[in-house]
């Protein structure tokens, strides 16, 4: 499992995080998980994806940059930024093939219904 971009997440402390980097990360990596450090739900998502032979890219979210990151991700998927937005970005958030797939609930649902594997294959996350 590649754990990358913690430095980028931490760069948020400087107050100058480039939203474009997040966009790049999501576009260039088949599966990206945005999760709070030490989050147990994230652990479950990782285990499920590992079970399918996927090595997701994990972006650590800490208290300092959580709000900002949530805003940027919401903007990225075309939603409205800010506390008044209809569907607030929740962590862990999983992006598959450059698009927001959802949280643990969505991953679990797709895992059971059998829809997850085709989606992973489509995003070239699987080697087989």
């Amino acid at each position, binding site marked *: 499992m590649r754990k990358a971009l913690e430095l980028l997440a931490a760069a948020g402390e400087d107050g100058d995080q480039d939203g474009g980097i997040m966009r790049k990360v999501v576009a260039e990596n088949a599966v990206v998980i945005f999760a709070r450090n030490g989050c147990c739900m994230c*652990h*479950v998502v990782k285990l499920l994806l590992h*079970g399918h032979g996927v090595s997701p890219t994990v972006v650590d979210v800490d208290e300092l940059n959580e709000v900002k990151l949530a805003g940027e991700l919401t903007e990225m998927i075309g939603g409205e930024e800010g506390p008044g937005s209809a569907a607030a970005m929740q962590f862990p958030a999983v992006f598959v093939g450059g698009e927001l797939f959802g949280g*643990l609930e969505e991953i*679990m649902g797709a*895992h*059971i*219904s059998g829809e997850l594997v085709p989606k992973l294959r489509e995003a070239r996350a699987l080697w087989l």
Partner: protein
Amino acid sequence: MTSPTTQFAPPSRMSMYEPLHQMPLWDNAFDGNISSGTGVCVMTEMDTKVDDKIEYTSDKSLEHTEDTRASKSVSEKIQRRLEQNREAARKSRLRKKAYVQQLETSRLKLAQLELELERARQQGLLISGASSSTIGLCGGTVNSGIAAFEMEYSHWIEEQERNISNLRTVLQSPIGDAELQRVVENILNHYCNLFRMKRDAARADAFYLVSGMWKTSLERFFLWIGGFKPSELIGVVMPQLEPLTDEQNVNIFNLRHSCMQAEDALTQGMEKLQQTLAQSITFLVVGAGNCNAQTAAALEKLESLEGFIHQADHLREQTLQQMSRILTTRQAAKGLLAFGEYFARLRALSSLWTGRCPREPG
């Protein structure tokens, strides 16, 4: 008036006493008080009546043995009287059986009520003991949310029993697929209602939910994150679904495998939660009040428990939905019946266990 001769008497007396010996459970349960029960008194009276008649008529029967015509009508009357006695004895046995069953049910109910009382007492103690702290205040809200859940749950169980009974009847009737599908969907919705109820209750007290406090003892023995384990459900239900097509077999095998993977992931997630929580507790500053960062962090970790319960219930719901997709309407109906009956039996066995008499020492 004729009546059975002495030689006929012993067999009928034996048949009256037989049920008594066949039911040692009742003997133990009532500690030998059974002889003072209504049922036995009735039988004793009847027995005495029979005895009286035997003694009264044994002399008379000797007088008439040479008269064949009289003895023929006598033997007919004897037969009729025998029949009446058998009938009366049978009715008496049935009455006794019903009475004892009623007593057993009341006994179980009493045991259950005692358990509930104890539980409520414990909850009450928690509230009164911690009323000064913030946790105590939370404990106050917990009680009402949980009390509401327990009430709703008992209604849910009643409706579930009705649904299952109806399903059993409907499966034995020549019902069309469309209507059977409606019945199946109704039952699936009923399960969704339960998951919704649990979600509301978890907000009030996640620990209550994760420990399955509202369930019977035996259900709690099989508990996995506040409910049944989906992969085990599939194992229980599958034998009832034969015959399955090859494709169905493959799909169900895959579903079970997926369930087990998801269950393992959630279990490991819970274990990680326990580990991180344990670590947080060792770093907690004791006596520094509720306001420090470490306490806040620990409390925040506890909040994720609610999420786990929700995910586990979501998995259960998804499994039920997927099963109904793989199976035909009739198979799904049979599966739901098997599932419902399994849990009804589990609850019944648990009640028997709870209500069983304590074993005498020695």
